[in-house]
């Protein structure tokens, strides 16, 4: 089942694998966004991260994001893989691939996907620093849209 378009996995993510899922003869552009584990955040040093997910619901919500994107940007293909478990610095946490006929849409749809992931997909990150650990919540500090979908201008802050 590793060829699911919307996948939560404990395995390392291969960028090419996700990109290949959106390959399309009528795509002129593929945007691939990769979220990686960063070492320093506001002067604080991360040792490693742990991600946990409500896996079946998370995959459904990723698929919902794919549907929202296809509705807003027709003729688009979307694949998203999110890794869970323990991740080291520089590991890939999420890979979003979007193919579209024209390039601008690929950027916009990809950015929409990452913002929506941070709103509705039940995945949680626990940061492990030298001096402690903490489950991170509500990074966006804004309204959740569990059922509907936000307007693009609401994504651009």
């Amino acid at each position, binding site marked *: 089942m590793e060829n699911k378009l919307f996948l939560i996995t404990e395995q390392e993510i291969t960028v090419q694998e996700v990109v290949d899922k959106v390959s399309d003869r009528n795509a002129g552009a593929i945007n691939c966004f990769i979220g990686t584990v960063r070492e320093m955040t506001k002067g604080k040093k991360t040792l490693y991260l742990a991600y946990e997910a409500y896996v079946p619901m998370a995959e459904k919500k990723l698929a919902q994001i794919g549907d929202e994107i296809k509705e807003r940007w027709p003729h688009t293909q979307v694949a998203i893989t999110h890794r869970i478990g323990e991740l080291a610095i520089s590991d890939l946490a999420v890979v979003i691939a979007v193919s579209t006929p024209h390039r601008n849409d690929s950027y916009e749809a990809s950015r929409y996907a990452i913002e929506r992931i941070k709103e509705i997909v039940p995945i949680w990150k626990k940061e492990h620093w030298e001096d402690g650990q903490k489950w991170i*919540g509500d990074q966006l500090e804004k309204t959740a849209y569990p059922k509907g979908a936000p307007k693009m201008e609401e994504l651009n802050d």
Partner: protein
Amino acid sequence: MIKILLFAELSEQAQSGELFIEAEGKSIAAFKDLLQKSYPELTISEATMIAVNEEYAEDNYLIQKEDVIALIPPVSGG
């Protein structure tokens, strides 16, 4: 008894990934109140979403017999 799934901070607080509670027929809002009273160690807030059968539920939804409920604290994927 209704099965409640817990994740992240909440499962650490409960020292378990699941709980069972008598909640059939209750609204989501009433269920959250009851759960908080029964398990004061859990951090349940306005921001804690409730999923029923893997879909976000409205506050006025009435819990059915076979429902699987999950507490969804603010998410932080990506």
